[in-house]
């Protein structure tokens, strides 16, 4: 099976083989490629980035990011769960905006500091 690693812009072309129940990955430049391929076959994950409205003098939207990748199938649900969330300035990059989204143990955090 062929996959394209999405970890970084390098986009390694991965070849994944199942040899007697053991998953063998080749074509990866770094160890993250192997991890990605195995995850993609068992439990595909995606980092979520979006923006939320913010009460601020200078900005209308706050960019946010998931603190870790979510199960791919939960990404749309997570966006829906953020529908009515509004952030408030001041906020620092890395501050938690929504804790434990959908009970997944993953937070939604600010990916920009907004002072006022």
């Amino acid at each position: 099976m062929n996959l394209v690693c999405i970890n970084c812009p390098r986009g390694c072309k991965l070849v994944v083989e199942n040899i007697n129940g053991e998953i063998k990955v080749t074509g990866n430049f770094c160890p993250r490629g192997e991890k990605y391929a195995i995850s993609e076959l068992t439990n595909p994950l995606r980092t979520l980035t979006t923006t939320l409205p913010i009460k601020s003098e200078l900005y209308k939207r706050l960019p946010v990011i998931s603190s870790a990748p979510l199960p791919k199938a939960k990404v749309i649900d997570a966006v829906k769960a953020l529908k009515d969330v509004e952030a408030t300035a001041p906020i620092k990059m890395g501050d938690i905006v929504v804790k434990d989204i959908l009970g997944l143990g993953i937070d939604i955090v600010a990916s920009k500091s907004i002072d006022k």
Partner: protein
Amino acid sequence: MDKHQLVIIGGGSAGIACALGASENGLTNILVVERDFEYGGILQQCIHNGFGLHTFNEELSGPAYAEKYFNLIKDNASIKFMFDSTVIKIEENNILTIQSTQGLIKVQADAVVMASGCRERPAGAIGIKGDRLQGVYSAGSAQKYCNKQGILVGKNVFILGSGDIGLIMARRMTLEGAKVIGVAEIMPYSNGLARNIKQCLEDFDIPLYLSHTVESVHGNGKLESITLIEVDDKLQKIEGSEQEIKCDLLLLSVGLIPENNLLEELGVKLDPRTKGAIVDDTYMSSIKGIFACGNALHVHDLVDYVSEESRKCGKAAANYVLGKINESESINNVLGNGVSYMVPQSFHKNNNIDFMFRVKKVFKECSIHVYGNGFDKKIKKLGIVPSEMQKVSLTADELKDLNGELNWEVIE
């Protein structure tokens, strides 16, 4: 008139890194002129992650990358930012006219760096038939509306061009509740990164129509539909392959062009292929004291490379201002088979140099052949495509016996 050692035009990824480099090499009076009210440039609207793997060894969003890089110079007293300001003219002796919140002002600089980024190729440049309709946007404009203003500019979206901004917007608009009908690419291969095809299109079952383009747009004031058409291997439209697709938004992701009006007016020689200044390995243009870096010099794939190049440009500009320049004659790069452009266009052989270039078409297993009188080197590549910038680094030691110009070609 205020005087500065260095004025940097643009406070985005290139301008910030350039200011850092200039300060590292000893300049104490650096001015960065930025048209927006904050630093970061286009990074501020690129809220997706994937930035910073080379620079910070972690994956950041665009705003986070800008913030982390800016933190390196935040408390640096040698660097001052002038926001809400645009340089509208550069005259001889590096006198700049700036439209600022204080009105029109003039400043003088020992050196100037063009770090103003690039613009998106507009609808008018690609010859789509039909009226000027509401609902045709460049992908970057739609991105700005969406990510900075929270405005979704359409509900049923078609995207022309498989550039990365278009792919990123396909995912972004899908997550915001729009229906992305498809992406058309006139070439038989995608122009975006493989990872973006996977995570922005395939994840959401958005079809990619290779060898297709938008023939015409239809609607009465507002966009109602487009005609999609297939092209042959010579990019000629195939009659009879037309299909009408209903949509209220057409996004264009059809290329970026370095923004260099100021340099053109000043008489700086531009490279017809990169649309940026012709520079040597110190990033100095054909006019002494005028430098360029980042996407204003040539369009990059990764912001990490923009930062790396711009930091080097800042260091070189500082050396120039402080009188530490290489007076030896520069050597030209001569481009042969398969190489579409090269930055720098010329170089001094007593420096270590990163040569950045793109190829004209998709090559499978091949070699980059670099040769001249007294130099010959072949670099094996497993496969290269025009959308990925290539880099070959040569040391001063390797180049020491080179006599005359350096030739570059791709051998299959």
